[in-house]
């Protein structure tokens, strides 16, 4: 266990080192940070003074060594735009993203497991076919389109008049397809509860939760179909295996076979994929947060790029790299819990 953790920590350090080198190598291509800091009519001399103050005129290697020296002491530099330590800026934006990812993950877990299992146990049922059809559509729609459609339907509202409104049934159909709108379409709302540190939470007020609904659904929409299909496929395979047949022959109840014996083995690969997908989900937050003006890491990162806020870009990439390593480590640990025969370090027990 200890050897495993040491191995993972050294991996994390290596990952972060590589990321920082790459980020520094491409910084020239990211543009001139001064363009966002001064007005158009500021003279070249004035600009030169600021560049000198920021150390932008030093060779890249000198800049990198200075950065690395500070980074070893836990200082990833100051954001140009926020005029604050980059890690502090990230800490301020992290809670919003975490709440978004948690919300989307909950939607995925609580929908994909029952639907996937149902579709595996009753593959011929019309409901299963319906869900599979929906998931094919869902997987092929880009997340920002989902977001825009959701905003149009549930924030702005749509009035339908496809059917003759004179007759009762026409009006009923029109009402049936029309939506009211009224759901919040941007931001986290006014009613946040301060938890600790930089964490202001929207999870404890109705206003905060209402603001979470559309962004979470959009973010979940991209992963949900994938998980439904994955669980269904795994479950169907497990149901064909010898030990399930043996259990059936033994006369165990269907529920016990499905939910105790089969489900447990189904979940192993799902957890692995899930761990990787949570990391990818952090990346998808960039799109979701932009469309919903969600003040999290993704939006912050995108704005940092348009502003050439290099210290913040580097810090973000390193933190996200760290999140990937940590989630994968956790997945491996959980793996061990679900299936005790798996050995973490790969050595023989």
């Amino acid at each position, binding site marked *: 266990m200890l050897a495993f953790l040491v191995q993972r920590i050294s991996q994390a350090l290596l990952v972060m080192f590589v990321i920082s080198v790459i980020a520094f190598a491409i910084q020239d291509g990211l543009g001139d940070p001064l363009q966002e800091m001064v007005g158009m009519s*500021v003279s070249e001399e004035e600009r030169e*003074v600021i560049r000198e103050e920021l150390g932008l005129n030093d060779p890249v290697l000198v800049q990198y060594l200075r950065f690395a020296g500070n980074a070893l002491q836990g200082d990833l530099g100051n954001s140009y735009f926020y*005029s604050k330590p980059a890690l502090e800026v990230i800490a301020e934006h992290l809670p919003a993203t975490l709440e978004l990812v948690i919300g989307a993950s909950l939607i995925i877990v609580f929908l994909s497991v029952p639907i996937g299992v149902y579709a595996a146990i009753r593959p011929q049922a019309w409901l299963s076919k319906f869900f599979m059809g929906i998931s094919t559509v869902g997987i092929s729609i880009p997340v920002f389109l989902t977001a*825009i459609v959701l905003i149009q339907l549930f924030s702005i509202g749509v009035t339908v008049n496809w059917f003759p409104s004179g007759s009762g049934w026409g009006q009923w159909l029109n009402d049936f397809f029309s*939506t009211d709108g009224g*759901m919040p379409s941007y931001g986290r709302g006014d009613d946040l509860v301060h938890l600790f540190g930089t964490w202001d939470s929207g999870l404890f007020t*109705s206003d905060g*939760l209402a603001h979470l609904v559309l962004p979470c659904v959009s973010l979940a929409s991209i992963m949900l179909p994938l998980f439904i299909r994955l669980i269904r496929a795994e479950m169907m395979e497990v149901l064909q295996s010898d030990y399930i047949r043996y259990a059936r022959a033994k006369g165990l109840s269907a529920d016990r076979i499905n939910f105790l014996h089969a489900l447990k083995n189904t979940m192993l690969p799902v957890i692995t994929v899930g761990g990787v997908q949570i990391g990818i989900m952090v990346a998808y937050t960039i799109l979701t947060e932009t469309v919903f*003006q969600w003040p999290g890491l993704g939006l912050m990162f995108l704005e940092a790029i348009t502003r*050439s806020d290099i210290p913040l870009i580097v810090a973000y990439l390193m933190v996200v790299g760290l999140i990937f390593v940590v989630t994968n480590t956790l997945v491996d640990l959980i793996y061990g819990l679900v299936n005790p025969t798996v050995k973490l370090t790969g050595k023989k027990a």
Partner: protein
Amino acid sequence: MKKLIGALLGSMVLAAAPVALSAEATKELKMAYDADPVTLDIHEQLSGGILQLSHMTFDPLVRWKSDLSFEPRLAESWERVDENTMRFKLREGVKFHSGNELTAADVKFTLDRLKRSQDFKAIFKPFSGINIIDDYTFELVTSEPYPLVLNTATYIFPLDSEFYSGQTEGGKDKSAILKHGNSFASENLSGTGPYTVTRRKQGVRMEFERFEDYWDTDSPGNVGKIVLTPIKENNTRVSALLSGGVDFIAPVPPNDLERIKRDKNANLVTMSGTRVILFQMNQERVEAFKDPKVRQAFAYAINQEGIAAKIMKGFATPAAQMSPAGYQGHNESLAPRFDVEKAQALMKEAGYEDGFTISMMAPNNRYVNDDKIAQAVAAMLSRINIKVDLKTLPKAQYWTEFDNRAADMMLIGWHADTEDSANFFEFLTFCPDADSGAGQYNAGNYCNPEVDALVDKASVETDLDKRAAMLQEAEKRLYDDAAFVPLHWQDLAWASKKNVNIEPVLNVMNFPYLGDLVVE
């Protein structure tokens, strides 16, 4: 489905509703801009966001009216004493947010600080000093006769000298202007304006409350609280208005103008703006551009009206010069001159009938539809056998390329900080001179000393009629010489809910005077 979803979501929406209702009684305004101010120090950066903040939390000596005339604010009256001196009378009894009273000493403090500010010092360069006559009278002195004293006075938002002087607990100078790093002024604010900043989370939201002791008791403004949310994404900003999440948005993207016009709860206001969009033709890189005939052929080949109608969806005013209507230099006689046959004939005369290949660069997220405009211009130039190698870049990378003059034709948009024609010439068409900083954005390397001399003469001419004639003459000469390819002035657009009466507080400078806003 309506009923079904209503039942599912109704509880959440209802729970949020009482907040909105009680807020309405105190006239709260929720507004969404594409960006929020980067700092609370109004001298740290010269940008639209900072000027908007200045008008909300401070007051200028004088301010622009929508017809580009001046309206007295903290300066009650003014008179020219001699060629180089203008005397101002300050309004009495004006209080800062801190409770201190405004005097001429505050104006001096502010002017001195402006002259130290990296972004503002260029605008205040003509000013040599300030004479304080008494607490409420002062004189602005320029080193040469300067016709734009009042234009510049719109940038003097007196600061609370007592509040911004001395040292912080940490021993930092309170009056320091820091571009990078935390200064006292970047986090604390005391002005004379209609609003105080009550909460600020950078990039997320900013809250303002009406200042109780605001001097302008005649102001019809009835907004007690303003919540500013930056929403960068155009679509999201428009959705926020249409869904009722915010009361007021700016800017409105051209693609959504129709959608907002159609909406029965929304109110759209547009007006012609003062930012000109143009292409410069680099004579240093392309020999052919030294020939006026070639430059004229380019000017004739571009269909400004087509671009304004098709690409800008009518949301732009086609331009044939730099000065927009209302500016002194605006020359009524100059009109767009789209004529492909004439352009082809000119190319033939110049000996370039078979055309040539040029490179072109434009930003793709700086001006409205900038990349599409560049594509259209490239296509139009093919009619005179010019092959264009077009590259569009995000603004962060574009300006580095622009400074390097990296392409034969480059797009630039320019808004005169002084709201005056001379500024266009000084930055865009003056012979480039690294020492004086003239022609800093002249990526065409166009150089016409006669026009430069004419504009220089106009810059010290205090007889405004004579001055206007000179500047209009300068525009005409550049037009005849086809110094650049003008495209259009970008229009401005704002949108609000029907009950927010934005029209009276809007102006062509694009900073609404929110202190006077009436919400019904």
